[in-house]
């Protein structure tokens, strides 16, 4: 399959490095503003839930983290596939940069979910499919990070990690559909939620704002981390020495 020119250009490390440097603040600043707006909306403006009272407000930090935990994995898996198929080093850099961010938000989704579970379900942890598959996601991220650290040869690490990331993709539909499978066993909670009046606008907008904010902060963090990866990998490249002010060396 032939790739379009813009894709090749994007895959060129110096080009991507310049673009990432330029774009980072355009993601970072709106992300922080939206985080503040969403938090204010979620904690102050949204009305209390008729069943969960003010406890439902945990949704504004739990759902965006849970969404990011799988979305980041998707980015990592797609980047890994591109890196394997087209031998694009930048794609491996993206996957490597995404892993620690994904691991942190998976951890956050698990812990905020556990704290939410205590007052609502009466327990911090239940070995139900959704919780268990999310915990497995955390282990896959941590496995990916330690596998990367186990290689001295960066190319070998890239390939091995990409294979691991692609194998781990099977966990994503399990996380997604676990609630449906779970409800067929334990019908109560899900049906109750479906029967409840749909979430009102003043409850919904802070959640959407938070999800957008998390997406933007992920983009900003990813760009910073990819820049670091690219600098490490291209340490001897002419363009890196140039932007660092090394003297020109003939050719």
């Amino acid at each position: 399959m032939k790739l379009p020119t813009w894709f090749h250009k994007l895959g060129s490390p110096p080009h991507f490095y310049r673009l990432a440097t330029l774009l980072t603040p355009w993601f970072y600043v709106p992300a922080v503003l939206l985080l503040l707006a969403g938090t204010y909306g979620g904690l102050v403006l949204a009305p209390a839930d008729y069943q969960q009272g003010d406890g439902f407000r945990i949704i504004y930090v739990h759902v965006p983290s849970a969404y990011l935990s799988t979305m980041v994995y998707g980015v990592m898996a797609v980047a890994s596939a591109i890196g394997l198929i087209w031998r694009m080093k930048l794609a491996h850099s993206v996957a490597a940069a995404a892993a620690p961010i994904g691991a942190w938000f998976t951890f956050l989704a698990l812990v905020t979910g556990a704290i939410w579970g205590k007052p609502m379900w009466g327990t911090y942890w239940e070995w139900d499919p959704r919780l268990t598959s999310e915990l497995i996601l955390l282990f896959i991220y941590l496995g990916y990070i330690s596998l990367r650290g186990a290689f001295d040869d960066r190319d070998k690490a890239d390939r091995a990690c990409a294979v691991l990331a692609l194998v781990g993709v099977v966990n994503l539909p399990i996380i997604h559909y676990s609630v449906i499978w779970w409800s067929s066993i334990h019908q109560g909670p899900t049906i109750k939620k479906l029967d409840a009046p749909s979430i009102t606008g003043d409850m919904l907008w802070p959640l959407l704002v938070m999800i957008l904010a998390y997406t933007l902060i992920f983009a900003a963090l990813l760009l910073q981390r990819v820049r670091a990866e690219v600098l490490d990998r291209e340490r001897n490249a002419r363009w890196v020495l140039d932007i660092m002010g090394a003297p020109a060396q003939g050719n």
Partner: protein
Amino acid sequence: MSDFLAMGGYAEYVWSTFGLTAVVLVINMVGARRRLRNSLREAGLRAARQRRQAS
């Protein structure tokens, strides 16, 4: 204000999740920045070495 802080009896759960979220966000922001700074410093040292060798 104290009503707001009480969170209808869910204070410990709401504030602990929001607090932890803030901590994890800051860790990520500081971590990414520090990672980039380290790489920039490394690259800068290399370039400086080359500059010395060239002069």
